[in-house]
């Protein structure tokens, strides 16, 4: 009954949307991963942020506000008529860090996509989600020309908390991306056991 009524004036809106963040360094395959499971070709929207110049962008005392346009790529999975899942890729460049707060607010969780050729490019994402207490899993995208490390080696290199799931994946492959998302959801549910006790019918 969410929509589709013949009389638009009698429509109601009971559907809800949730989101999962796909994070990682520039060029690691975030949009590819989104596209591999999205029911629509990845969409792009532009957020425009006005921010006071500060920090690394501080031009020695020049306090002008500046406007920055950040492109966000995302995809959609209609779980059922009442529930839509959106997958948002984070902007890859470090200078767009300020967008991460808005993106991750209200997110179910995150996938940190790692590239073994440039493992350091995902340190920042790991730190960010740890500091925000947003649950995440790490997917190690296996590029054809990337050196194949074991999941344990990558986990050590990233100094991950032992509870953080990590798996090898191929962001181009639908089944592989599904497995990453399933792992994230299972991780989220294992962490919500305390909560579940207070909710009838949970499991």
């Amino acid at each position, binding site marked *: 009954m969410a929509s589709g009524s013949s009389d638009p*004036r009698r429509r109601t*809106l009971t559907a*809800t*949307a*949730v989101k999962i963040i796909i994070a990682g360094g520039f060029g690691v395959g975030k949009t590819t991963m989104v596209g591999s499971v999205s029911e629509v070709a990845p969409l792009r*929207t532009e957020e425009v942020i006005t921010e006071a110049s500060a920090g690394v962008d501080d031009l020695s005392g020049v306090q002008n506000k500046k406007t920055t346009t950040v492109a*966000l790529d995302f995809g959609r999975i209609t779980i059922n008529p009442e529930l839509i*899942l959106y997958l948002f890729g984070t902007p890859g460049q470090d200078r767009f860090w300020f967008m991460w707060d808005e993106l991750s607010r209200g997110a179910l969780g995150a996938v940190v996509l790692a590239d073994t050729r440039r493992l350091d490019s995902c340190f920042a994402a790991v730190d960010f989600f740890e500091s925000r207490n947003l649950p995440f899993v790490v997917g190690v995208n296996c590029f054809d020309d990337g050196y194949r490390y074991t999941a344990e080696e990558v986990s050590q290199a990233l100094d991950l908390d032992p509870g953080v799931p990590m798996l090898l994946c191929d962001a181009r492959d639908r089944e592989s991306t599904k497995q990453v998302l*399933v792992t994230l*959801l299972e991780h989220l549910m294992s962490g919500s056991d305390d909560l579940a006790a207070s909710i009838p019918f949970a499991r």
Partner: protein
Amino acid sequence: MTGRHEAWFDEAAGPLVRPYAVTGGRTRSDTLGLDLITLVVAMRSAAEAAGMEPEYGRILRLCQHPTSVAEVAARVDLPLPVVKVLLSDLIEQGHVLFRTAAPVTETPNKHVLQAVLDGIRKL
């Protein structure tokens, strides 16, 4: 920006071309708290939308089914802040319903997580 701007344009305004001309220069629409995944749905049919200002009409046609603010923005190819302003106008005029996502502080409940998990497995 305070007060309502229901009639910021008239016939003399001419074609609406620039994103911020579309919004009458307004860039802020925080009062409704529209977010990337706030869902919107049109309360007017696509046919009724045809008689409206072009950008409003396009948005109404795009959200005949529940659609996120981000998706509307991507499909009308206007920056997100502009689309938020236009959607706010449509909401205030009763042409669009909106529903924000769960409050930030609310931990997603297990029903939702289970439904998402089942949905992904079925893909």
